[in-house]
């Protein structure tokens, strides 16, 4: 019964709100946080970049292969950017246990990436990611490549994929 009532209210509220909504992209509108604690809508972040390739890498401070991958990409970052500009978003899935370490950790690494936090895994869930590291390449609002896991040398494969787009 409660569910039915809630559903009724939902529909009414949605219809009311549709008129005031703006044209959103098709990626789920999930709020993630910047390292300074500001809320950012992921769909808007992706929608703004159009035909520039965006690499979205899900990682965590406690995940050794994730950190090795980001260290290795960080070393190649300038060289890659000079050949082909792209955007790199590193989404930390560290939850309340370790999320406070993310900002100093990244500073101690000197990574050049845009860092965001997904503390209760809303974005991870929206993309159906089971394990980290997980890398997605998005272009023109479409996922064009995705890869689970990291072993040394995967970054070469990633760059080959971006070049081939």
């Amino acid at each position: 019964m409660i569910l039915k009532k809630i559903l009724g209210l939902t529909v009414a509220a949605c219809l009311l709100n549709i008129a005031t909504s703006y044209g959103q992209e098709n990626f789920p509108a999930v709020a993630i946080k910047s390292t300074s604690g500001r809320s950012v809508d992921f769909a808007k972040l992706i929608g703004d970049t159009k035909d520039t390739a965006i690499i979205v890498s899900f990682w965590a401070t406690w995940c050794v292969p994730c950190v090795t991958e980001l260290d290795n990409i960080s070393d190649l970052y300038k060289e890659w950017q000079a050949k082909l500009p792209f955007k790199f978003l590193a989404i930390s899935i560290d939850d309340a246990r370790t999320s406070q370490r993310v900002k100093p950790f990244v500073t101690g690494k000197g990574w050049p990436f845009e860092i965001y936090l997904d503390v209760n895994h809303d974005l991870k869930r929206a993309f159906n990611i089971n394990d980290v590291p997980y890398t997605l390449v998005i272009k023109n609002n479409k996922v064009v490549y995705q890869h689970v896991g990291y072993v040394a040398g995967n970054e070469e494969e990633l760059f080959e994929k971006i070049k081939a787009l």
Partner: protein
Amino acid sequence: MRQNVWMLSAALTLTLMASTGYAQLEQLGKGHLSGSFESYTQLYRKDTAIGATPPQDKFGSNNFFKLDYTYKQFSAGIQYEAYLPAIQGFPFVSTKLNTTEGKLVNRYFRYSGKQLSVQVGDFYEQFGSGLVFRSWENRQIGINNALEGANIQVQPVPFLKLKFVYGRPRKYFDYANAVVRGADAEIDLNTLVKAPDDAAVHFTAGGSYVSRFQSYTGNMEDFPATVNAWAGRLAMDAGSFSLNAEYVRKSSDPHLVNQYDESTGKALLVNTTYTGRNWGANLSIRSLSNMDFRAEREVEGTVLPVNYIPSLTKQHDYLTTNIYVYNPQVAGETGGQADVFVNLGSSKLSLNYAQYKALKTAGKLFQQGDMAYFRDGSLEWKKKWNNQWQSIAAYHYVFYNKSIVEGGNYENIKAHIGLVNILYKFAAKKSARLELQHLYTEEDKGNWAAAVAEFAFAPLWSFYLSDLYNYGKTDLHYYNFGGSFMKNGARFSLAYGRQRAGLFCVGGVCRYVPAASGFTASFTLSFNN
């Protein structure tokens, strides 16, 4: 009845989608479809040396299937799970008392607009740092306390975000015999006072209220069937410096785990970070008193948490550093941890120190008692020598009060751990990795040595061999070998070996896993169009 509600919900979704300005349903093909499949299967064998007793049919398999679709502002999704039966030690109880069971467990429908978002069905949510409320999923540990009900989020004015949750928490394949409801408000103080976007300091304040009700049929007068909890938080970010604090109070909540303690629960968490040009540091301080908060009074272990209290210690990555792992003492503890990360170019250093002690007096958060629960100090040095070679070397000191963390009567343990992890990339896509580790202690089971060798052929293949050896006292080898195949969003892995009995911790939540021996196969697949 419930089936009808869901049919109705599906029909409404389609109708609403079709009425948003794009009449043709084929437009739906332009939405975002995402899904995943995860399967974890173990084939057990009897292994008396390590005390592994297989279940009757020597087989366990946990399976998860999830599908989500988003079109414009609308999302809908389902999750199906099957335990055939659940792997050994996994907290699952079949509702039908069968050994195997599969069920469509989660489903939702969500509308996310600019100022309003509404989700009905099963949902996950967190208030603040989770100290007062967190519903989440962790498949390794076996936690899924999604609420079935409604989650409404409103931003009536730009500086204010409100969240309302109402529902029944999930318990295995059923729901708890309880209701959880809550509200959270977050105020962006900079927006409120119309500070410029590039203001040097950014302030946010928040407050939460959570209440859980479970009817009480016993004969104690004034027994609290409803437990209320409040939290207040403040965050400040000044670029290189940040400070976060959260304080929680919980009304009298006698239940099984706190041994029917009627006192008020309290928690304080303070985090501060500083980042310089080439270094960063953070300090976390936390005190807890009677903060075990569950949806039902009679459950224990990892079942039905309402809030989230992780251990604030370094999360370890290696075989030997995972032997003595802290589990927070929610009944009462006080302590904290500090981290320093330094970038020296090709060398990176990280230091961590954590310490937790008993409270001197229950309910007094700022009085530290004499009994130490846990101490962990570590130094890690990562060095990239050239394009082919990189290494990690680390030292850890651990003090572990086994009687408190695991329960029982044991001596305190002091351990020293040293390890190296060497990566050699011998071709563009070929690499070898070697880990050597040693744990020294005079107490408990004595010394441990471990080695891991891994060979990877990017992008598809990787193989490993490992051994964790407890020498001197038990002389047991916990050997494992296996391989994995990865392609796009799919990963398949197969391993054979022994699993040590002990606390298995992911994300700061631990469950006890029994000793096991045999094959493990796992398959995960994700897709996004």
